[in-house]
């Protein structure tokens, strides 16, 4: 069974922006997929749909065979960890509390309001921090960490959910090249060791080619490429990054020359 299935999904926002114009695909369990595409192509929208943060205008989505609808929204979100470009940690909470946010889905109303967590939740958070190598920073405030460390806390938070799927929306866009490399390796390692399906939006073609099992190219809300990194040649890239009404794009050609 596919880990994520996307069936004819369209998304039109209230302001009239047509972000996705009919996307259908299946993501295999335990695979590492990278989505490439220019800004505004609908990459983020697609990830947000898979976590139920947006609802499709048409079409449907399912995670591990369970369709995403209003009734099981929280259950689906619990199985889908999310990693963000700007990390989105709660600045004033400690690192370990930020990771424990990933366990909130299992906690009672009163317990979570009082910031009480079970021993086993604490163990899960501890292990997640160990995986990202930040156990020694556990009790520091999240905003005291560097960007790369904050992103690793973000990944630990997703891991603490013990998810089936991790969605990462441009996880390295705010990081330097070396840190980016580390974060991508970490995501790759999580995918391989825990058999978690990982879906990453990226702007870096080289990282995509090196880390992905499969690359999906989105342009103006449509899938324009779907294949292995080896299949992503210059003509395919030109298709992915082509700008509307600009068939003979000089900038695009000079960028692709270095890709």
């Amino acid at each position, binding site marked *: 069974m596919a880990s994520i299935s996307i069936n004819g999904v369209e998304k039109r926002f209230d302001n009239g922006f047509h972000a996705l114009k009919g996307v259908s695909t299946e993501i295999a369990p335990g695979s590492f997929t990278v989505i490439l595409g220019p800004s505004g192509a609908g990459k983020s929208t697609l990830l947000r749909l898979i*976590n139920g*943060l947006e609802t499709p205008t048409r079409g449907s989505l399912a995670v591990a065979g369970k369709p995403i609808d209003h009734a099981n929204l*929280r*259950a*689906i*979100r*619990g*199985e*889908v*960890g*999310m990693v*963000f470009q*700007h990390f*989105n*940690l*709660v*600045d*004033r*909470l400690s690192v370990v*509390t930020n990771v424990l*946010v*990933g366990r*909130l*889905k299992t*906690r009672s*109303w009163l317990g*979570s*309001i009082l*910031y009480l967590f079970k021993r086993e939740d604490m163990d899960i958070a501890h292990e997640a921090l160990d995986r990202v190598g930040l156990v020694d920073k556990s009790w520091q405030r999240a905003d005291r960490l560097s960007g790369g460390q904050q992103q690793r806390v*973000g990944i630990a*938070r*997703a891991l603490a*959910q013990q998810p089936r799927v991790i969605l990462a929306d441009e996880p390295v866009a705010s990081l330097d090249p070396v840190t980016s490399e580390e974060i991508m390796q970490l995501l790759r390692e999580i995918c391989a060791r825990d058999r978690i399906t990982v879906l990453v939006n990226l702007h870096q073609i080289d990282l995509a080619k090196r880390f992905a099992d499969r690359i999906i190219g989105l342009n103006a809300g449509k899938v324009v490429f779907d294949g292995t990194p080896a299949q992503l040649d210059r003509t395919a890239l030109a298709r992915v990054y082509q700008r509307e009404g600009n068939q003979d794009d000089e900038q695009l050609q000079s960028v692709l020359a270095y890709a």
Partner: protein
Amino acid sequence: MTASARTPLPPKPFNPTPVWLSAWIVVLWLIVRDLDLSFATLAYGVEDMAEYFGRYHAPDFSDLPHYLSLMAQTIATALWGTLVALLFAVALAPFAARNLTPSSTAYRTSREMLNFMRAMPDLLLALIFVASLGLGPLPGVLALGIHTAGFLGKFFAESLERIDSGVVEAVRASGASHSQIVMYAGWPSILREALGYTLYVMDRNVRMASVLGLVGAGGIGLALHDTLRLFKYDESAALIAVILVVLLAFDYFSTWLRGKLK
């Protein structure tokens, strides 16, 4: 590139500020004229005021311990009032923040409740509560609590609306419930601001509590009310001095504390 080859600057947008400014000046002048405010009457009034204030020249501090205990009661009224306000505000603010509210009905209802509480002047509330509950500090506590709950709730809600939407989304994306989002993404992000607002409201409530006594809601204001009615200028002067000194001290204290928070 020569100047003529440049893309011409788009036309400058119209700046309405001078028009508004002159309109406001005209309106203000009309108001002053209509109310017949004149500097001449003010100048005559100064002489009368000087004579009246002269009657307070000899404050009588013989009953100082009593005055201080009344002042303590006033401060207690203010603190309890602030606590009541805080409870109401913490309960209502998450519903009145657009980004955290569970539904638009909850948003509208809580906003209107806060607006209503804020719109009821605390002096009026105190009069109502004194009439229904009798003299004493309790009506003062309720009046201050309800009125300032409206302020605190609005301040909190607006701070909550300013928190990073990504943080809210991250907590929501983990499968957290509404109350968990409020507790983990909401309050921790605005804790410092919220403490600052609470201190400010407490400061304001201490000032207001001294006046609330005038309508019978306990504390030092009640004593001042009595001495003024009996034309006991010496005792009134002492009471006013106690109020001023304590209020100033409290003001410095809360300013210092708020400075520490920054």
